[in-house]
C-alpha cells in the first residue's frame, strides 16, 4: 500500500476511538433525564462553553499551520504554532476545570445520579484526551528545540495533528449532542 505505517496505525486507532466515545455518548443520552431528582441539563452555561469550544476549534487551525510550517522545514514557525495550539488547549482545559467546579457547587455531583456520572465521565475522558494532546505538543516543542525533531520529520507533527484534530471533532459532536440539543430538547 506504500503509506506510512505510523499514519496508518494512527488512523486505525482513531477509527476505534469513535466507538470509545460513542459508548459514553450513548450512556449520556440514555441518562439525560435520570437525574435522581437532582440537577440536570439546566446547569449548563451555554455561552461559557461556547467560548471554550470555539477556542478548541481554533486550535485546530494553529495545529494545521504548525504542520504546514514543518512541511516547509520552518521549525521556528512550527514551534510558534505548536505553542499556540497547546496554549489554546490549556485554555479549554482550564475552562473545563472551571465548569466542573461550578457544576459541582450547583449540585451536579458525580455520585448522585446516572446523569451526573455519564456527564462527568464522558467530558472527563475528553479532557484526558486533550491533556494527552497537550503533553504531546509540549514534547514535540521541546524535542524540536534540542534537535530530536528534524526539519524533515514533519510526519511527527502530522501525527500529533491528527490526534489533536480528532479530539477537536469529538468535541464538535459533544458540544452539539451533549450541550446544545439537550438544552433545547429537554428544557
Amino acid at each position: 500500500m506504500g503509506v506510512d505505517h505510523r499514519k496508518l496505525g494512527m488512523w486505525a486507532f482513531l477509527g476505534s476511538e469513535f466507538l470509545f466515545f460513542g459508548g459514553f455518548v450513548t450512556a449520556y443520552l440514555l441518562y439525560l433525564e435520570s437525574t435522581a431528582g437532582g440537577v440536570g441539563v439546566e446547569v449548563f452555561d451555554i455561552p461559557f462553553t461556547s467560548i471554550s469550544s470555539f477556542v478548541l476549534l481554533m486550535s485546530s487551525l494553529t495545529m494545521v499551520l504548525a504542520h504546514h510550517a514543518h512541511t516547509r522545514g520552518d521549525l521556528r514557525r512550527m514551534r510558534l504554532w505548536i505553542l499556540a495550539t497547546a496554549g489554546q488547549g490549556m485554555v479549554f482545559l482550564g475552562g473545563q476545570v472551571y465548569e466542573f467546579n461550578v457544576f459541582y457547587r450547583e449540585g451536579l455531583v458525580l455520585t448522585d445520579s446516572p446523569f451526573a456520572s455519564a456527564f462527568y465521565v464522558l467530558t472527563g475522558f475528553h479532557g484526558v484526551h486533550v491533556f494527552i494532546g497537550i503533553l504531546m505538543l509540549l514534547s514535540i516543542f521541546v524535542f524540536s528545540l534540542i534537535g530530536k525533531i528534524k526539519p524533515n520529520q514533519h510526519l511527527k507533527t502530522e501525527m500529533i495533528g491528527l490526534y489533536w484534530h480528532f479530539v477537536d471533532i469529538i468535541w464538535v459532536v459533544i458540544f452539539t449532542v451533549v450541550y446544545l440539543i439537550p438544552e433545547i430538547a429537554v428544557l
Partner: protein
Amino acid sequence: MASSTVETKGFKGRPKGESGLSAWITTTDHKKIGIMYFVTVLVFFFLGGAESGVIRAQLAQAEMDLVTAEIYNQVFTMHGITMVFLVVMPLSAAFFNYLVPLMIGARDVAFPRLNAFSYWVYLFGGIFLYSSFFLGGAPSGGWTGYAPLASDAVSNMAFYAVGLNILGVSSLAAAVNFIVTILNMRAPGMTFMRMPVFVWMSLVTNFLLLFALPPIAVALFMLNADTVVGAQFFEPASGGDPILWQHLFWLFGHPEVYIMILPAMGIVSEILPTGSRKPLFGYAAVVFAGAAIGFIGFGVWAHHMFTSAIGPVARSAFALTTMFIAVPTGIKIFNWVFTMWGGKLRFHTPMLFSIGFVSMFTIGGLSGVTHAIVPHNAQQHDTYYVVAHFHYVLFGGALFGLIAGIYYWFPKVTGKLMDEKLGKVHFWTWLLGFNLTFGPMHMSGLLGQPRRTAVLPGELGGTVELYNLLSTLGVVVLIGSALVFLFNLIRSIKAGQAAGDDPWDARTLEWITPSPTPSHNFDAIPTVTHRDEFWHRKYAEDDAGKVVRVPAGASEDHDTDHEGEHIHMPDPSYWPLVQTLGVFPLGYGLVYLNFWLIGIGVLWMVIGLYGWIIEPLAEGDDDEPEDAHTPTGAAAAAH
C-alpha cells in the same frame, strides 16, 4: 546480521544480547514474542484447567461441599476469564506473531516495540488478575460481569474491571499493529487474493478487536467508576439501567467469540489443504465467508439477552441475524469437507486435530442455532445446554484448531518434529475426554440444570447426577491427555526428530525459510506470483498437464544476490518491559482508589514512553527517521 546498528551510549543505549534471559526480555523479534506468548498461555491454560477441575470435582455429585460457594463462584469466574482472555485470545496472538510476517514475506511486524509492549501488558495483566486471589478474593461476578451484581463490592469485580481493561490495551495495540502489518508490509506481488487464509482471518480478527474492544472498555470504565468511586451508571435505585451493561458487554462479547474462532478457522484452512495435498476448495468463498462472519458478528449481540428485559421486536430482529450467521459458517464447513474430498489424506496429528475441529465445531454451531429459536431459548438460556454449546465451539472449535496449529508449526519454530505416536494418543484421548465432558451437558441442561450453581441440586434427579458424573470423569481423561501433550512438547523440544525446512510438503511462504527461522526471516524478500506461492515453486505442470515436482533449486528466490548485504532488523529494547511495569501501580491504584499509586503508575508509564522515544533509533524500527523510510511490500509490487 540483525545486530544493533547504533552505538551504545550510556543508559540510553539499546541492549544487544542475542541470547540468554536479557535477549528474551528485551526482544522485539516477532518470533521470540510469539514463543513467549505461547509459553505464557501454556501456564495460564493449566491454571484455567485446574480451575475447571475444581468446578467438576464439586459437581461430581449432588449437594457436595468440597469448596464453599464463595470459592466456587470465584473459581468459575476466573476459569471463564482465564480461558477466554488469557488462553484462547493470546494463543491466537502467538500465532499472529509468529506467522503473519512470515506468511506475508515480511521481516517483522510494523511496530516491533509496540509488539513487545502488547506481550508485556498481557503478561502483567494476567498476573494482576491472578494476584486478586491473594488480595481478598478473586472476582466472582461471572465472566460476563452483569451489573448491578458486579458493581456490588462483594463481587470483587474491581479487579475484573481494571484487569480486563489492561488486557484490552494489549489487544488493541496488537490489533493496530497487525492491521498495519498486513495492509502495509506484504511482499511484492502478495495481493489480497493471494494472501494465505490464515492471514486473512488474522486481518478480520484484528479488525474485530479494533472495533469491539472500545465498547467493553467503556463498560469497564463505568463499572470501575461504580465500584470504586460510587458512580451511578448501573444503579437502578437512581435510574441507572442494568441492561446498558449487557448491551455494551455483548457488543464486545459476541464479536469476541468470533475473535476466538476465526484464527482457528484460518489455521485449519492451512492444514487441511496440506494434509489433503489439494488446494483449499473455494478459496474466495472461504475468505469472504470469514469476512462476512466478522461483519454480521457485530449485529447479533442481543442473542445473549433473549431472556433479558428487551422487547419482542428486538428479540425477533436478533433471532434473524443470529440464524443468518449459520450461512457463511456453513460455507466454510462444506468447503473444508470438499477440500478433503478427492484428495490423498495424510493423517498426521495436525490433520487429525483439524478434522476434529470441523466435526466438533459443527456440533457446537448447531446447538448455537437452536439457541436462536427464541421461544425455546428461554428454556436453554443459562443452563448447561449453553455451557455445552460454548465448550463445543470454544474447546472443540477454537482449541482444537489452535492445537492443530501447534503441532503443525512446531517444526518451523523448533526445527524438530513432535512425536507422532504421542500426538495420536493426545488426539484420541482429547477427543474422547472432550465429548465425555461436554456431551452430557446438553442433556443435563435440558433436564433443568442451571449454570453457575455452586452445588448440583439433588432435586434434579439421578439422571442429571449421572451426566454430571460422566462430565467429571471426562475431565480426568482430559487431564491425562493434557499431560501427554505437555510431555510430548518438552520431549520433542529436547530430543525431537530433526524436521527439515518443509516437513509437511506445505504451501505457504513460512516454509521457505530454514527451521528454526533465523531472526531476519528471509535472506531475500520473496516475490509472490501465486496464491500458495511456495507450492507453486515446488510443483509445476509438465507437458502432459500433470502436476510434478520441479527440480530442487527452482525454489530459490528470483532475486538472489543478497549475500553479504546488510539486513536491518529492529534492535531489542528495554523500554516496552520497563514502561509496562507501570501497569501494576496504576492497576492497584485504580482498584483501591489510591491517587498516589495512580500518579506513580501514570508517571512511570509516561517516563517509560519518553525512554522509548528517546532511545537511539535504528533503521527498521517503528520510529525510523523519515527519509530512511521506503515503502515496502505490496505497494512496490502494485506500482
